[in-house]
Each structure stands twice: as structure tokens, then as C-alpha cells.
């Protein structure tokens, strides 16, 4: 099966102290470290495991600039067969629909039987998977936490209330958004990345993909970010400024006082 995984490079939430910039319209991006969006990494691992079971190829695509190549190298080191960087000045400032449009045009250039995305980007809004499926007129399943390949279709499951699982059958080709925990992604070390250092990663622009430039980019975006803000400290909120031990016992005391501990 030819599998496409749409991945994205995001600031690593576990390794950054996210702060707002002075203008208040973005986060402070100096000194940030980036990594593959975590659910996307699970999607790549799932694609590799499906490929290893049923054969085929895994292609990883990302939309961005030169810096984003690092995540493609990482996914190649994990075992992806191909990686493609989709990059064009015209794409910058795209909203979710714009990104889905670019991906749609990329998908149409290939022959993918299965398209995976992460369930959501750490800095995103979980829009692209569903929109991409609609634009391609493919069926879509979200929050997928297991995949079984059957003839011409898949059995996928998602977690529902109370830890139960719901199993759905979905026809191929389709788009799935992958939940973390579906597998245990393999480790990629520096050695793995070094070994794929010379693997060429093609870059495709708007023209090569035949993207209608008036449908993407900042001008076409119909969802615009207007502000970032830190919630104001409300009257009920109490900040603890003691030592670790003091804070811990204070928290315990407060929770008990509010009836949280029986």
C-alpha cells in the first residue's frame, strides 16, 4: 500500500518555556527547539508498521521552509521510503483550509491508498485531516487508535467515553487522523539521522503542484489569528510562592478544604 503521512514541525512543548512576544500576536520564537509534532510521529510509526505487514511505501510530506527539512530527515531515519518538502512563498500565512488545499493538490500528484495525519498539531486546531478528506472526497476517520488492514478496507477504532473502543470499517482510499498511543514509535538517534543525511529530499513549489495561488496563503485565509493572551488572574485563583514541600502541603490542605479528598 502507498501511504502518505502529513507531518509538521512544531515547537517542542516539553523542551520550551512558551512565552508571548512583546507584540502579543505570537509566542517568543528565539531559542525555541522544534521537533516532529508528536501525533504525526505516531502516524509515521503506524504507516511503517502497516507497510512492514502488507508491503508498499511510506512517503512523508510537510509544508514549510528549509528548517522543516530536519523532521523529514528524522522520519526518513525512522524508515520512511520518501520524504517531500512542499515549500513556496505563496503558501505562507495559509489557514487550515489553505493547508488542506495544498495537500490535496500534492495527493493528486501521487497514488496514495491511505493518508494519515496526526490528530492535531501542538500549535494547530485539528482541521486539516477532515478538510483534506472532504476536498479529496475520501472517507475520513478521526482519533484513530488502531488500524487493521483488510481487503480494500480498514478496520479502525477510536476510544470513546469510559475507555471503551468503537470499531469502524472504512473504505480505501481514506484519510485517518491518528491518536497518540496507537503504537510505540521507534527511537531515532543521531546515528540514524546521519545515515540519511545524503538522501535527497525533493522540494515542490506551487507551480509544480498546480496549486491555485489565489486559494492559499495569507490573502486567501478566512481564519485569521488576532490575538494571544494570558488569562488574567481571577479572584479565585491563588498563587503559591512557598518551597516545594510547603506548596505541596498547602495544595493538599486546599483540596481537602474544598471537599476534594474524602
Amino acid at each position, binding site marked *: 500500500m502507498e501511504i502518505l503521512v502529513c507531518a509538521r514541525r512544531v515547537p517542542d512543548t516539553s*523542551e520550551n518555556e512558551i512565552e508571548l512576544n512583546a507584540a502579543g500576536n505570537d509566542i517568543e520564537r528565539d*531559542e525555541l527547539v522544534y521537533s516532529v509534532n508528536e501525533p504525526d510521529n505516531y502516524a509515521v510509526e503506524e504507516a511503517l508498521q502497516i507497510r512492514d505487514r502488507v508491503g508498499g511505501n511510506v512517503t512523508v510530506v510537510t509544508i514549510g521552509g528549509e528548517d522543516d527539512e530536519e523532521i523529514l530527515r528524522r522520519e526518513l531515519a525512522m524508515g520512511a521510503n520518501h520524504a517531500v518538502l512542499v515549500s513556496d512563498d505563496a503558501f505562507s500565512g495559509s489557514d487550515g483550509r489553505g493547508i488542506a488545499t495544498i495537500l490535496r493538490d500534492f495527493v493528486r500528484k501521487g497514488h496514495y491508498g491511505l493518508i494519515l495525519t496526526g490528530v492535531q498539531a501542538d500549535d494547530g486546531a485539528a482541521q486539516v485531516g477532515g478538510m483534506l478528506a472532504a476536498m479529496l472526497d475520501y472517507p475520513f476517520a478521526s482519533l484513530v487508535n488502531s488500524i487493521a488492514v483488510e481487503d480494500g478496507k480498514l478496520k479502525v477504532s477510536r476510544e470513546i467515553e469510559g475507555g471503551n473502543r468503537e470499531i469502524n470499517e472504512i473504505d480505501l482510499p481514506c484519510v485517518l487522523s491518528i491518536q497518540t498511543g496507537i503504537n510505540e514509535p521507534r*527511537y531515532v538517534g543521531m546515528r540514524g539521522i546521519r545515515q540519511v543525511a545524503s538522501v535527497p529530499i525533493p522540494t515542490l513549489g506551487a507551480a509544480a503542484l498546480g496549486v491555485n495561488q489565489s486559494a492559499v496563503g495569507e490573502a486567501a485565509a478566512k481564519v485569521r489569528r488576532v490575538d494571544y493572551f494570558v488569562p488574567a488572574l481571577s479572584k479565585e485563583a491563588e498563587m503559591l510562592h512557598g518551597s516545594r514541600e510547603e506548596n505541596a502541603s498547602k495544595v493538599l490542605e486546599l483540596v481537602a478544604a474544598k471537599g476534594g479528598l474524602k
Partner: protein
Amino acid sequence: MVGIYPPSQVTDWLVPSRSLFLTIHVLGVACFLYIVAKRLVPLTRAERDPRFDRPLIRLGRVLKFWLGQWKHPRYKFAGTIHILVFAGFILLAARAFTVLIVGVSENFVMPGLSGRAGPIYDIVTDYAATIVFLCMVVAAIRRLVFKPARYAVPAKYGKSHTPDAVFLLGLIAILMVADSLFAASNAAGHAQRGQPVETLATLSLPWMLKIVIGSMPLATLWGLNVGAYLVHEVTFYFLLCYRPFGIQFHVETSLFSVYFSKLERGTLKPVRWGVRDEHLDQVKSFGVKTFEEFTWKHMLDFYSCADCGRCADNCPANAVGRPLSPRFITIKARDYAFQHYPVFGKANNGKPLVGNVYSEDEIWSCTTCGACEEECPLLVEYIDKIVDLRRGMIDDGNVPQSLQKPLKALESRGNPYGKMEKKRGDWAKSPEVQQSGKVKVLDGNNDADTLYFVDSITSYDDRMQSIGRATARILGSLGKNFGILGASEKDSGHEVRRFGEEMLFMALRNHNTEAIKASGVQRIVTADPHAYNALKHDYKDVPPVEHISEVLAREVRAGNVRFNRVEDEARVYAYHDPCYLGRHNQVYDDPRDVLDTIPGLKRVEMKRSRDRSFCCGGGGLMLFYEPKEEQRMGVVRVRMAAEAGANVIVTACPFCMVNIEDAIKVAGMEGKMSVMDLTEVVDQHMVRGVCDEKREELETATVGG
């Protein structure tokens, strides 16, 4: 053949059966050589391992650990038995050889034993055989009746080894009895025939047997003599050929294992011997994934293990129920080697070791504390093997999720917590540190000659920063011109390397090496034994490194440090040896000497201390790993301290501090037990200004003189 000649007519009863004996000799030796050749096949297919250097040091180790049985008295009873049996075997070697030859050449005398030495040697070996026989009886009783716990085989590792052990003890006992009966029947026969009679050692086994059989008819004696010879010969060759199938192979291999044993403590073997760091990219596969990727010496280790169980008995992972027993790391590899390279037929296709022979959890469970290696009488190596197996798992991407995040953070941020680089030196800005002088951040433009290498946990963990502050204050009070690297320091990579991530380790090491060189310092001090071990053994071309306890001990001995009296008389201190300060680097006395200088400090020793110290639970990445275990190592350790009568555990390592502090809470011993770092104890009691006074005294003396 026996019985054809009247017994009185032949001078030697063995002569008529010579051809039978010769046949057995030839068959026995041929069988043994064939089996040994087959056992050596995997060693020829193994990875290289250069162990042919420094022959004098190696011979010295053979004298100490092999001939001198150095490690054996660590287990008093079993050790004594082994020393007696070993000495017996060494003494009896010439006698056994003589007996074997006499069967085919009746006048053979071992060179050197023809004169007056002969009878003396006979007397000594009569006793040796008797002692070995008695040892076999005692050992069998021990195995069968007293059943020491360390010999038990958990169900997951297969059947009990006791039947095989007792079988082997029985064979050796038979050998001793046969040997003694042969000597006794010879002497009894000679006595009856009026020939010169050999002196048998009073109260020895041959002596007693001679009394029993002395009055038997000559023909019976002849039968006994030839029978004893035959039993001796057959048992000897059976044992010889049976040994390479199990634990007794160490009789043959131990000499080589000890000669080729690892000489440097605290070090790790490279990914591939003979491959330079810059060529590592060309190595197709890292670490050990299949049996043949072990080095030949490591395979020899598998053959040499005597299954004594001392490694597992001391292994903290085994003690807390983690799925790891060093004993079975070896036993399973040996069983696999025997099955993979059978004595009859060709080697069959190998399987990946992890997943078939070992489980992943088993390999990640090791804290590399070194207790197993310290204990092993045969100097079997474990840490290098564990690390090699981990290198293989890392190479295959087979890493627990719990370790992937810290590894990624180490790659991008240089610390396992993913904290900002620029905040690494923030701890040094606190007013408590600044009291004894500002801590310089070394950027190459300072005049500092000493680098305090802090490492990640002390830099970022808010509890451990106290160790950093105490260390800085001590160095300041000692008048050291020192500084830290601050944001340009990265993790030492000690655990990164021991978890098998060699390339990431190399990146961290190269970065730190450059930063250290750029700082222009002449020496390095650290309060973290893991950083200490890394800088001392894993780094190259950096200035000499000392642990703060070594610096302190020297200053204390020079009279440059004075301490205030311990105020709280109820406090009883026990010093816990960190693995990478104690076992791996032999620093046992310095921290104790420093503590003992503090007036009024009451100190007790835990049962397991110094080279038998019990690991706290492991440092570095081990803090992130979630082992399957019944209880925490730290909890076991805290209970040991309580048992020793202590209420303050002093350690000299931030990781020991984390683990023991947590363990005190888990064990519900808060208020009854506390833990402090050596630097904190010193900082608390140190009289400030002693150094300045001394300097002034010196200056005055110089001026006056």
C-alpha cells in the same frame, strides 16, 4: 588381562591391561580436544578484543585472582571450600597425571619427584585427596540439605541446577576415592609381597582404605587395584569431556578468563575495537544484536561462569525483583551458545538475542553499579555486555518511550529535562552562593584555574542545586580560583553512553571538551560521581578531574579546613558509597576521612558498604526509566541504614540523594531518617576563613623570615 597371571608374579598389576588403558587415554584425549575445538568455533567468529597487551600485569592478576583465589574469602564458607578444592586440584595435578601415565608406562615418575621429593609429595597429596573428598561431601550436603538461596533457579530460568552440581561433586568424589584406593591397594599388595611399601599419610583416605583392605587376598587386591585404576581413568576422562557442557568448564577456561580480564575500572569498551570515532559512521550495525557480535573474551566469560550466584546475590536489580539477574545473563548466553553451536553438527542460524534470549526490560534494568563484577571470582564482565546489548537496541530504535523524551531533550538542549540552556548556571546566582564570592562563568577571559563541572541534575533540579551551592561555597572558602561553564556546559553524557546512545554521547563529549579547553583551566572538580567518571574515563584530552571529596580530604589532611562541632548529639551518620565514586573509582576513604574530622560526628557503617555498597537505584537516564520491580532499591538501602542504627545517610552523589530522599518518603521514614550530601555536611560545619588565616600566617612568616 586381569587374572591371566598369578598376582604374585607380576611386578606391576597394571601391565596386562595396558592396551585397554591406552585406548581409553587416546579416546578421552581425542574426545576432549574435539569438544574444545567445537567450543572455540564461536570465539573465532566473534568480534575482536585486544587483550594481549601488558603481560606482566595480566600475570600478576593470574597470581592474585586465579592462583591466589583473591575474591573467594568474600563468601567465607563457600570460599574456603573452593580454596581447599582448588589447592587440592593444583597439588593433585601431577599425581593424577602420573597415575594416568603409569597405566601405560609402569616406571614413569614425574620429573622432579624422583628423589626425596617423591614421598613428601605423596604424603601431601594423600591429604589433598582426602580434603577434596571431604569438601565434596560437605558441598553436596550444603546443596542438598541447606540449599543456600543464591543457588535457586527461578522458574522462568528453567530447572534447578542442583542435580547437575551434585552429579559433578559425585564424580570428583569418585575420582578421589579411586585415586586413594589405587594407592592403598598398591601399598597393601607391596606389603603382602614383602616389597618396599609406600608410606601413606596417617588418617588420610588412602591410609584408612589400606587398613580396610590390608588383609584381603592378593587376588582381590589386584582386582581392586586395576578396578580403581580403571574407575579413576574413566571418571577422569568423563569429567574432562563433560566439563565443557556446563559450569565445570571453568576448570579449563578460568585461567584464560582471568589472564584476559579487563584492566581498567570505570571504562566502557568502544562500539567496535579498532574503529576510530570518526569512522564509526561506516560501521553497519552498532552493539550486540546477535551472539557473534559479542567479543571473544565475552564469549569466554560465558564459558567460565561457575554458576556460584554471587553476582546475582549482590545485584540490586535482582534484589528488588527487577527482571535481571547477572547470573542468568551469562547462563542463558552459554546455553544459547551450546545450542547455536552444537558439539555434533553445524552451527544453526542465529536469532536476535533481545527478544529470544533476553527481554528488553532485562537489559534496561541494569544500573551499571558494578556489584556483580566486583564480586565475581572469575572476573566475568557484565557492564560492557549490557551496554553493548543496549547499543544494539538503540540502533534498532528499540527504546522505551520513557527514555525517548530525555534522549531527545539531551540532543536538542544538552540536558534530559529539556530546560533552557541559558538557565543552566542560574543556581549560582543565588545570594547564598554569592556570600563566599561570585561564581565566575568561564568564557576563556577569566583567570580561574579550576573548573567546577556541575552537570545537569545539580544545575536544574531545585533540590540538587543545594549540592551545587554547597560545593561552590566550599571551593570559595578553600580559596580556589574556580568557575563554572554555565550555559556552555552540557550533560556529561555518562548515562547517555551507558544507555547505549554512543553518537549522542560523542556529541555531548565533543561539545564539553571544546568548552573546557576554551575555559583555559588546569583542573576540574565535580561533586557528581557520574560526571567524575565520565570526565576521568570517557573523555580524552581534558585536564585532570577530582571529586570534591578528594579535594576536601587533601585540604583536611593539610590542616586547611576546620570544623565546628556537631550540635545535635542524637544524629548518627552512615556514609553511602555512590557506585561511580566507590566501586568504579575506588574512592572509599576520602569521604569517610572528611566526615571523621568533624568533631562529635558519630558515624556507623552499613553492612553493605565500600565495595559491597548497594546501589540507590541508578543515576541519569535511569531516573526516567520505569522498571518493573517489587520495591525500590532506595527503600532497601534506607532500611539498611536504619538497621545500622543511623538516622542521617550521607552520600556524595546527587542521584543517590534523589533516590534516597524519595525512598525515605516511600518507606514512610520521614522524620526518622534524612539524607545529606557530603558537601552539605561539610558546608554546614566548616569554619570560614581558615584558609585566609593560613595564608596570612604564611605571608607573615615569609616576611618575618
